[in-house]
């Protein structure tokens, strides 16, 4: 016996701190007494930050089931360190008596390989009573079977580790490789755990007579064990399978073929062109609370091909029916076929696939049977219609035809309804409009057609009811008559054309002056009757000419561009203005520099009219420099201005010109000589040029000359 592959790997992230507890690994067998072939538990306990159990070693004399251990994990966090404590219980069994040793078991805990000590077991021999019990058994669901009909062969084994065969071989039977049932269950007691594996094989007898299935080999807990041989008797299907009269059928007599089956048939194999043929497709499911059957792939809707037929699907029906001694639920899909051409037409194969679930003992123990059925094809011989007489409009079948008029006395200009009704078995779509005679005293519109299919009790085919409603509008007052007119159809029962004469209808048409403009006020008509009856469907009339009829104008792209650009541009402008205002209010120096040129030039304009132009010019120039550089203008001299201009890093020639103007003004202010008008004008001009230059260089409070 060798141990299986790696069983368990549990990895959890935990910091391996130096003060963490060391890992622990233990192995033990809690059973006080170990008896041969009696299960016991092998328990492995491990704790640490990360635990990785290694492959179990091979044990001589002990079989350990590593496939289905019982496991508990406990996580704990202490001192910032996460630990896990594992307890894994392996079912095991000793297969020989005497001293048996389970070698040391290894695990990687927190990066280190730890191992347990070897466990030495003293195994007692199994009691004599145990040796008589077979751990495997095989049985049949029926010992008498029908050749060709399936039956079940079951094999069941109990042990720690079980390997059942995929199929069985025996002379005289065949095993279905698809329909194999598999089930596994476990039983627990204080000693340990045992597995119960069961497998069912769907077999079919291939010959008559006694058949023996040889012992079936099963591997149980490391040993090969054989079942007992099975015998059965097969007989031919001709032998009676139904119970005698008066006896209730037993479930054992049900075969797979009785549970679910399908049928497809037509109500006739020979028909005239256009005559209705009823195709039925039936799914029979046995009424048994233990059996649940249904379509698996494909279903009733995807029916057979019907090339050459016009088809009309009818509502599916469900009913109960008996087949032999058993009751069934039948789901029937019906389809009407109308042959469109003479000759031999074929209804194709109907393929149906499904499953049936059969509860054997409980809901969890169910047989699952797959079914595949092919029904058909069915050939239909279609006879052509004889040469048609005049007035034949295509109706083929068995019909009753009648006609009636809405009223015998009508008003001129008011439509009168003439209803022609065709009832019976036939294709309603093939029944064409009856040919009305010419009515010179009236106008006649295309008829409105109404079709109904009505189910008829105790018959499979529905009855068609087609009405043609003609709107006849009398144009002249007086006596009028709708002359007799024929309705011709082909009667499939009589195999001949039949003519039914409809009419005549006598009418009295009363004159009216407002025939063409007759209106009813809505107040005169009850609400329920205000809906008009559409006598003939047609397209809606022409539309009126629009007020302006003109070619499509070129795209108004510029206008739309403006419509979309203007709001965004307005928002952007508002943002700029708002930002400027806020800066003006918050940054006084920037605000002074922004206004410096405007206020400076305004002051220069007042210089010429000032009684002391030199003083006014000096003040204006100094004020401009103070505003531009955000200085206090009080007490500024030409020297101070020069120093400030140099400190601001302005070009030297501009500073020189500004200071020259200021000094000229100072000389005039503090000297005895007044400035002439021309000198004042020249100084003003020079100051204006300096202001413009300074403003350009310092616009917006930024130094642009650097």
């Amino acid at each position, binding site marked *: 016996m060798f141990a299986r592959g790696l069983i368990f790997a549990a990895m959890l992230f935990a910091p391996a701190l130096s003060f963490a507890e060391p890992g622990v690994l233990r192995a033990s067998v809690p059973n006080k007494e170990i008896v041969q072939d009696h299960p016991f538990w092998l328990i492995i306990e491990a704790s640490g930050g990360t635990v990785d159990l290694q492959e179990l070693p091979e044990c001589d004399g002990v079989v350990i089931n590593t496939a289905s251990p019982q496991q508990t994990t406990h996580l704990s966090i202490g001192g910032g360190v996460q630990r896990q404590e594992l307890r894994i219980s392996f079912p095991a069994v000793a297969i020989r008596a005497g001293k048996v040793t389970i070698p040391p078991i290894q695990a990687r805990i927190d990066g280190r390989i730890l191992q347990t000590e070897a466990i030495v077991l003293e195994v007692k021999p199994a009691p004599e009573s145990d040796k008589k019990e077979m751990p495997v058994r095989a049985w049949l669901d029926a010992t008498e079977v029908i050749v060709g009909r399936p039956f079940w062969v079951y094999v069941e084994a109990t042990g720690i580790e079980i390997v059942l065969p995929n199929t069985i071989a025996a002379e005289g039977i065949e095993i279905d490789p698809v329909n194999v049932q598999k089930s596994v269950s476990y039983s627990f007691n204080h000693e340990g755990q045992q597995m119960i594996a069961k497998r069912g094989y769907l077999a079919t007898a291939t010959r008559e007579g006694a058949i023996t299935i040889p012992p079936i080999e099963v591997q149980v807990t490391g040993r090969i064990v054989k079942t007992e041989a099975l015998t059965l008797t097969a007989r031919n299907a001709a032998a009676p399978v139904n119970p005698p009269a008066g006896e209730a059928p037993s479930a054992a007599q049900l075969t797979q073929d009785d549970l679910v089956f399908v049928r497809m048939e037509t109500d006739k194999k020979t028909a005239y062109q256009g005559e209705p043929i009823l195709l039925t497709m039936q799914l029979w499911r046995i009424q048994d609370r233990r059996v649940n059957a249904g379509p698996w792939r494909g279903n009733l809707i995807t029916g057979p091909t019907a090339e050459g037929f016009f088809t009309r699907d009818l509502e599916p029906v469900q009913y109960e029916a008996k087949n032999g001694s058993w009751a069934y639920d039948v789901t029937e899909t019906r389809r009407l076929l109308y042959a469109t051409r003479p000759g031999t037409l074929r209804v194709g194969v109907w393929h149906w696939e499904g499953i049936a679930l059969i509860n054997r003992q409980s809901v969890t123990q169910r047989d699952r049977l797959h079914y595949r059925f092919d029904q058909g094809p069915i050939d239909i011989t279609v006879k052509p219609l004889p040469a048609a007489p005049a007035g034949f409009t295509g109706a083929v079948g068995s019909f009753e035809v009648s006609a009636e008029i809405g009223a015998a006395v009508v008003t001129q200009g008011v439509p009168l309804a003439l209803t022609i009704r065709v009832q019976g078995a036939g294709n309603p779509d093939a029944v064409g409009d009856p040919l009305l005679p010419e009515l010179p005293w009236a106008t006649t519109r295309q008829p409105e057609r109404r079709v109904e299919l009505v189910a008829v009790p105790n018959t499979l085919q529905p009855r068609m009811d087609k009405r043609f409603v003609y709107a006849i509008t009398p144009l002249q007052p007086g006596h009028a008559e709708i002359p007799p007119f024929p309705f011709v159809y082909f009667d499939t029962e009589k195999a001949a054309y039949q003519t039914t004469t409809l009419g005549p209808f006598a009418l009295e048409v009363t004159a009216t002056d407002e025939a063409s403009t007759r209106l009813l006020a809505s107040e005169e008509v009850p609400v329920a009757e205000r809906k008009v009856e559409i006598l003939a469907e047609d397209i809606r009339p022409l539309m009126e000419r629009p007020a302006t*009829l003109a070619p499509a104008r070129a795209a108004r792209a510029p206008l739309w561009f403006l419509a979309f650009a203007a709001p965004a541009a307005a928002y952007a402008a508002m943002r700029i203005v708002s930002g400027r205002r806020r800066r003006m209010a918050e940054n006084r120096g920037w605000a002074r520099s922004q206004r410096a040129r405007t206020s400076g030039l305004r002051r220069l304009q007042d210089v010429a009219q000032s009684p002391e132009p030199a003083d006014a010019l000096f003040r204006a120039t100094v004020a401009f420099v103070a505003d531009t550089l955000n200085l206090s203008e009080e007490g500024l001299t030409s020297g101070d201005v020069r120093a400030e201009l140099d400190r601001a890093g302005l070009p030297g020639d501009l500073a020189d010109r500004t200071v020259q103007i200021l000094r000229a003004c100072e000389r005039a202010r503090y000297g005895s000589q007044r400035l002439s008008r021309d000198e004042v004008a020249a100084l003003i001009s020079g100051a204006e040029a300096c202001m413009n230059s300074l403003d350009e260089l310092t616009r917006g409070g930024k130094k642009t000359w650097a």
Partner: protein
Amino acid sequence: MGLILVAVFAANAFDRVFDEGVSAYNEQAYPAAIVSFEKLVDEGVTQPEVFFNLGNAYYRNGQLAPAIANYERALQVNPGAITVRENLNRAVGQTERGLARPRPPAWEEGLFFCHAGRTAGQSLAVAAVCWTLGWGLLMLRMARPWPYLRAAAWIALAVAGLFGASWWIKSHPPLLAVAAEARVPVRYGNRPGETVRFELYEGDRVRVDQRKDGWMRVQTADGERGWAQEEQLLLVGPPFISYRDRVKSSAPVEQAALDAVGYGDATR
């Protein structure tokens, strides 16, 4: 002044042609009605009334394909026209199998569920209003910092974006075509010898994915694709090209009517 006079004269001429078409239709001279309305289409008149009446004239003349194509044109210009939709459904119902119109992609139907039935102009107008409202709310917020103004503005701008996208989609509709012959083979490739993949019947509507060397790669409502010859299909547009070379006319009196409106040669 001269331009105004020319415009007025042209407008009167369009009205006269329209009225001639209506008169011919009422006199059951459907080919003459068709050429009158087609003349308006030639002149670039794309109002839904013209396409609708043209569709009716083709329908009465027994030509389902151009009738369906013109109803589709009318619906492209005015998707909310119920009357047009009714006539279109009636015409489609008379085709061989009533094939549905190829639907727009699922994402478009999901995202722009609200723009069905609206014209491109309406979508653009809604987008412009929401756009202006969004920016207006942002401007209002600068003056009056009321709560939720910013969120309302962004919502308005998002709606504007959605309707702008709607306008773009409606302005660039998928190119539809209508099968113009009783059976139009659709092949695996764009050569006459290619295997026929499936067939279209007269009046079936398909979406045109690609045009190449006189062939169109078409896609049906259920996603089937293939190549068909251009001459066997009618392009719905835009651009809206006249179908007058496909008018069926046999009666001499109708030919006279065509001559009367100046389009007699078109059907000869």
